[in-house]
């Protein structure tokens, strides 16, 4: 009995060698593709549970692969990128990627992202939760109530809307533009300052140490992410 099936699309043999060994040891079934073309074919043929996709492929760029995949499947996609590719990361996320990791990354980080993606997959196939819990935070989406260690926290309308939007995509990186257009409206795409200020207010109300947030995380140059504790 093997675990979930992961398709890794990357062209560097050493990374593939390491990932295959590590992921197999964690009981994942691993398939490997070294080009975008091959990756798209394998994704269609084998229907993996998760795709790990490198942005720099020899035949086409990862963003294009992402866009092609999203034409027919909702399989979670985790992007691997190198530094100085913030614009590319944002583009990939906008094209439907679920998450990204910057090389070099710690393997715990990758495993955590894989778990989040799998949970997200299970959730999207089942019923939508109306109550989301992360550590001491409990968000009741239907009743518009947020509690911290059982005590109700007063949030303004926008604060709640922002938290609810992040929480309903738990674990996923949401780009600034994505959040702004969904919470404030499409005409606010450039007003990142709203997001900064309201995130900071949310952290003050919900995080034990707002300076070292554990649930409402910044993704520098890209966006924000709400995480639940594993």
């Amino acid at each position, binding site marked *: 009995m093997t675990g979930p099936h992961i398709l890794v699309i990357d062209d560097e043999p050493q990374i593939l060698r390491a990932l295959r060994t590590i992921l197999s040891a964690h009981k994942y079934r691993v398939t490997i593709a070294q080009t975008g073309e091959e990756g798209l074919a394998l994704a269609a043929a084998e229907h993996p549970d998760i795709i790990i996709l490198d942005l720099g492929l020899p035949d086409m760029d990862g963003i294009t692969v992402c866009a092609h995949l999203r034409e027919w499947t909702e399989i979670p996609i985790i992007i691997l990128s190198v530094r*100085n590719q913030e614009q590319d990361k944002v583009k990939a996320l906008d094209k439907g990627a679920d998450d990204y990791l910057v090389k070099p990354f710690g393997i715990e980080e990758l495993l955590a992202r894989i778990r989040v993606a799998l949970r997200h997959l299970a959730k999207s196939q089942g019923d939508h939760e109306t109550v989301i819990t992360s550590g001491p935070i409990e968000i009741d989406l239907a009743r518009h109530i947020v509690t911290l260690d059982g005590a109700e926290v007063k*949030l303004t309308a926008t604060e709640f809307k922002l938290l609810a939007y992040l929480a309903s995509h738990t674990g996923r990186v949401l780009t600034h533009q994505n959040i702004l257009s969904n919470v404030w409206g499409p005409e606010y795409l450039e007003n990142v*300052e709203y997001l900064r200020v309201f995130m900071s207010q949310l952290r003050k109300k919900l995080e034990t140490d707002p300076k070292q947030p554990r649930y409402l995380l910044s993704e520098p140059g890209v966006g924000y992410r709400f995480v639940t504790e594993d």
Partner: protein
Amino acid sequence: MTSSSSKHWLIAKLRNFILAFSVISVTTLILFLLRERFSASTVALLYLVPVLICTTFWGFWPGILSAFIAFLAYNFFFLLPYYTFIVHQTQDIIALVIFLGVAVLISQLVGRAKASLAMAVARESETTRLYEFSLGLAGVNDLDEIAGVIAHKTFDTMQPDRLVLRIKPTNLESPITIALPLEDVSAGKPDLVIPLETVRTFLGDLSLWLDRGRLAPSEERVLSTLAAQGALALERAALERAETRARVLEESDRLKSSLLSSVSHEFRTPLATIKASTTSLLSDQIPWESRDRKELLSVVDEETDYLNYLVGNLLDMSRIEAGALKPNRQWNILSEIVEGVITRMHRVLREYRLEVDIPEQLPLVPVDYIQMEQVFTNLLHNSAKYAPAGSTIQVSARRQDGDSLMVMVKNEGPQVAPDHLERIFDKFYRVTEPEKVSGTGLGLSICKGVIEAHGGRIWAKNLPNGFAFIFKLPLTWEGAPPPVVEEERL
């Protein structure tokens, strides 16, 4: 020569002759009315006045014409017998001949004086133009500008229908073509092509289209002087540029080899540690205790982080060098950036006490989040590198003069000699010996690059009990002050 211009010329000449004729006619009329009062010899003298006027105003040939007409009129109206060209008296014949001689002589003398005056004026204006030209070229070092000066000055001086200046391309420069007047694109064979060349090289040429077909000798002289001076200026500029380029290349070569040696030295150290740890772990000779195994692996982990930091700095440096460091500004919360960096660097900073003093009410700052992260990362790395373990590193920020932000990263590290303070932001500059303290010497120069790209300034300062990096950033963005996001009521 075009027909219209030769017609003009003819009309002008004809006008002069007609005017000369008229003056003599009027003089004759006046003298005729006064014939009884003057003797014939006085009349002859009086006739010299209009001849003089004609020569002075309308030139030599109209002067000669006036002399002849005056001669005939004098004979006809004032010498007996009147109204014939017959002369009876011998003395009258002598007077007539002398009159003609004197009139012609006057015409000649005056005409020659006028011509030499005109030539002197022309020479003077020629000299002035050449002076202006060399003055125009003197302050200019740019090839395009020099070409512009040559083309425009030649155009102004020669007044051609059209002018085209071509500078041939070299291995360093692209070709330049200037056509005047700008809108005129009509081609055809030029009337005149002057090469722009010096003893050493041929640089290009100057083509002229002239309505008058050819140039006067004086104009040709001016043109060849313009061309020669222009060519010299062009050559000087080209040589200067080639020299600058050679110097820049040499400097960049020197920097590159310095970078390579610095980087290879820098990478070897963590690589050596990693290699030692992993080969130990791979070896079957020692059954490692789990505590030791963990220690070795932590070393490997930390060293890879450090390698990654070095590579990041190299990438940033190459972007700064390529001029690609354009900040992607947004209104950001400074403390969020600083706290993020501190969290990420917890391993590097674990032996230090960290104090962050950023006031709550500090306005939003217009910066590139990622680049500012890099600035703080490098400043904190530097502080951790030099300050003794267990000491305090402080990050503080204040609004200053209303529209700027002052940030200070303070550590308890050793002081830096005053004459080094400026230079620590230079590339590859390290105060201590390369062997003593690790680092590529890139970190601080990246900070400088980023801060300056944000329109700010960074400097370092010795403190009574330590050392501080200070930078100042504008709080306005394209003239706009920090936005205030309204608080929402519950």
